């Protein structure tokens, strides 16, 4: 083969490579860059069930959030060695108790549900994070798409200008084997807005268009030779970015325009402002927004650290619930708060708690969720469920997917032909769903 190639003249060699590339990948047209055109969107097909939730705000507590000091205080557990100084408080929902670290969230429990018997097979941060986000275990042979990427792909865009999957303050996972446009759009600092999205001052519209046209002209030859999906995706990326830059939807990323009272309501921390940005994005009909908050890996000095973290968490979460409800968006939006695993019920030597993958908590609120419900209860040592059954991360994702109307039983194939399901083998927890 090699010797044959060598004997061809240069033009033929190039033709061969080009045609080989063409044969492997798809063909594409160069779209028009230039003025912003409001393209009509094709009707999205409904799923097998009506979707109760159209948007997800996923609040990810990275590091392994202690469950006993936040969402699952256990009055049966021994106060000295297990539960510690944190006591339960009543909430707006009858019979539901949260820890005293979350007083503001307690006033919204009538719209929320807690699953107290989450269990994961992974006790390490990276693996637990991966399992929670993708519903599959981490393995070297393939990168699985995160649940957000699945949602972005399968639910389809409502707003065609903004990416459907946004990750604020940190990003867990990627689009895996799905197209990279479904992967999370990272926002490192919510106050800074969308990075690199402002046109320079000295560039007015005509000059910008001229530059774009020149770039297009230079690319034309390359695009003709290599009419490939990957190449086309690259030009699409530019065009999508320009479309976003020029549209008014870009203003969704501008948290600074919010009045001060709103910013204070959420709390002027990275997490609080991230939640505020999430609310703005839901107003712009983004499908999946993830806000990460770290600092939960409290192997020592657990109670002080958790109290500080909860101050931030409580403020942001309750503001989000209040704000969305006031605007009438809560019935379409599901808020999920979860961590990769919990922490030991028994307090360790450093007045801290270590990793504990049994019986941690997941908080769900909003669209598709039956308010005021608690699923499951752990025994007094926190190892086995006293009521209910263990719920694994795949089942939590299946619960979210069920409310969104995703096809949970359909097998999807990666480009290499391997079969995957949206939420793996998870079964939705019907007790917390409102249908």
């Amino acid at each position, binding site marked *: 083969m090699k010797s044959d190639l060598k004997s061809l003249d240069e033009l033929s060699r190039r033709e061969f490579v080009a045609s080989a590339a063409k044969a492997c990948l798809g063909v594409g047209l160069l779209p028009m860059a230039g003025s912003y055109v*409001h393209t*009509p*969107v*094709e*009707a*999205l*097909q*409904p*799923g*097998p*069930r*009506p979707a109760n939730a159209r948007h997800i705000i996923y609040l990810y507590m990275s590091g392994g959030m202690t469950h006993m000091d936040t969402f699952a205080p256990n009055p049966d557990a021994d106060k000295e060695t297990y539960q510690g100084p944190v006591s339960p408080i009543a909430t707006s929902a009858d019979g539901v108790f949260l820890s005293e670290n979350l007083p503001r969230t307690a006033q919204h429990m009538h719209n929320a549900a807690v699953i107290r018997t989450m269990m994961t097979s992974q006790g390490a941060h990276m693996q637990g994070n991966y399992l929670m986000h993708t519903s599959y275990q981490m393995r070297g042979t393939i990168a699985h798409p995160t649940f957000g990427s699945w949602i972005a792909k399968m639910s389809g865009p*409502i*707003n*065609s*200008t903004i990416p459907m999957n946004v990750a604020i303050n940190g990003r867990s996972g990627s689009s895996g084997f799905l197209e990279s446009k479904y992967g999370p759009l990272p926002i490192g600092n919510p106050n800074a807005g969308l990075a690199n999205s402002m046109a320079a001052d000295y560039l007015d519209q005509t000059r910008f268009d001229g530059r774009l046209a020149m770039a297009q002209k230079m690319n034309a030859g390359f695009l003709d030779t290599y009419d490939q999906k990957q190449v086309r995706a690259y030009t699409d990326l530019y065009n999508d970015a320009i479309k976003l830059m020029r*549209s*008014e*939807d870009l*203003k*969704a990323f501008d948290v600074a*325009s*919010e*009045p001060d*009272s*709103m910013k204070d*309501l959420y709390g002027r921390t990275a997490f609080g402002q991230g939640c505020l940005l999430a*609310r*703005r994005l839901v*107003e*712009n*009909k983004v499908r999946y927004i993830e806000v990460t908050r770290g600092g939960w890996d409290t192997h020592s000095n657990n109670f002080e650290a958790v109290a500080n973290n909860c101050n931030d968490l409580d403020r942001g979460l309750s503001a989000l619930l*209040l*704000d969305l*409800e*006031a*605007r*009438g968006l809560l*019935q379409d939006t599901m808020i999920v708060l979860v961590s990769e695993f919990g922490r030991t019920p028994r307090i360790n030597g450093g007045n801290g708690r270590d990793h504990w993958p049994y019986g941690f908590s997941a908080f769900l609120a909003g669209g598709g969720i039956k308010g005021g419900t608690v699923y499951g209860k752990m025994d007094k040592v926190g190892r086995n469920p006293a009521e209910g059954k263990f719920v694994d991360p795949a089942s939590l994702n299946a619960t979210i997917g*069920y409310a969104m109307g995703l*096809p*949970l*039983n*359909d097998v999807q194939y990666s480009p290499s032909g391997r079969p995957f399901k949206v939420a793996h*083998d998870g079964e*939705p927890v019907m007790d917390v769903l409102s249908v």
Partner: protein
Amino acid sequence: MLCLFSVVYCRGEESFRTFTTADGKSFPFRVLSFEGQEFYFEDRNGKQYKVNYKQFSPTDQKYLIDTAQNGKIPEGDPRKLNSAKTDSVMDSTEETSSEEKPEGVPTAEDDRRLKAPPKKTPKLRPGSFFAYKPVKLGQDPTLAEEKKGGSMPKSGEPIDFTSHVLPILEDRCFSCHQEPYDKNGRTIQPKAGLALNTYELVMKGNLDATVVTAGDVEDSYLHEVLTLDEDDDMFMPPKGGPLTPEQIDIIKRWIKEGAKPKAGASATADASAGISFHDHIFPILEERCLDCHGEPYVKNGRTIHPKAGLALNTYEAVLKGNLDGEIVARGNHEESTLYVVITLDPDDSELMPPKGDPLTPEEIELFKKWIDEGAKENPSDFFEKPKEKVAVSLTSTADKKTALVDLLGKQVSKLSPVKLKAASETGALVTPLSEKHNMVRAEFSSGPSLIENKAVQALSSIQSNISHLDLSRTAVNDSVITMVTKMKNLTWLGLRNTKITDNGVKALKALQFLRFLNLSGTQVTDSSIKELSQMKDLEEIYLWNTKVSESGVETLRKSLPEAKIIWFPEVVQTASVE
């Protein structure tokens, strides 16, 4: 292994021993019976042989003579003996059958024609542990019992093809009339092109004609050839003598009772009494579907769930469907997923069952009839087909929002793609709400501040199909309400952060199905409270960030006690997204 035990527990059955022939070859055989100098043996695979006793070594010969003379083995062809010995009813005719038959003893040549001769069932002592047939978990033991011996039917019992007729065919007919098989590189076809292995093949007949006419014994050639004169060319079976009168009678009764595949089950046409799930539908499911869509079971420590989470092993399971919904729409086969997937194109990847041939037209017809009759468990169950048009009464549908939308959606027609495209011309996103009905949601999500009243005009062509309309953050004003009120089936209206005022709200009374109204961020004042109080069917109203005061909200709460009215004291001075 069974044979080892059979030494202890069986009567009249010899154990395996090594026989050595005169030329030194040795075989592990078990002697079954004898006739004159010919002995019948069985090897460990169940294959039977007939060998003259003189071919063995002297010790073997002595053994053989000993067993024959001392009555340890019966006399006669073992295959004949097998078919005649299973039940007491037949025992009395054992002597007669062996006397009547001519000496048509099958030779070793005949044995070679059989690809896999039937395994001889060992004679077990009554009460023996091995006399019990193992039954799968969940299977009815009495059914398994019936299948065991290929027994004679008790008097009055209907003839079952599998347990009564098939053993006869297996015993006397399969040697010539079985499905084509390969032997030594050649395909051996059944004699006269007629295979009799299975019910379908018996009913199919051969290229010339069928051999069985259900219900008509005279017309059934199968019965005729059994009762011909023995000298006749077409007499069946040509070797080994005629069938016993009992066997011919079984076949005759089977044909007379309708040549059914199962006792009591109806064949293709007998669905006049109404289709019952257990008799007509379940056998098809059991045969073609339960391999993949059975109950969850544990294998190698893992729980194997049915494919697509859909179990079909009981009536309840079939009606329940799976997480994605139900597969049977009672009374309407076109909307039933179960019917749709079995009638897809053969090259469609969703065709069920995916392995083997598609269901026969008769089976598909059974499903269609069953679903149209109401998918009943018993034909005598009551099912009333829902009427096409359901009159919507405002009081009766106060239960859930989805129920209302479902009812409304069934009254309007489906939107064509052309209409949907035309409605989306001005930037609206029109999405169907559900597969089950034809209502849509229309919203303006991208660049909403560019949307003005005239953009909503494009939706007028589909106005009766719109149940959810979201005009939030657009640049519409009160004049758009005239267009909105023309959407008679509107249940959900979002006007958040628009320039709507009390004037626009006044006109909303005309929407009799409106249940959800979002006015947050608008300029409505307490003047609208009176109008809103008259809309008694409203279920959710959002009034935060408007000019409505706390007392106005209180008045509204009193007028609409069932409604959810969301209002908070102002948290922000201005609307959020500019």
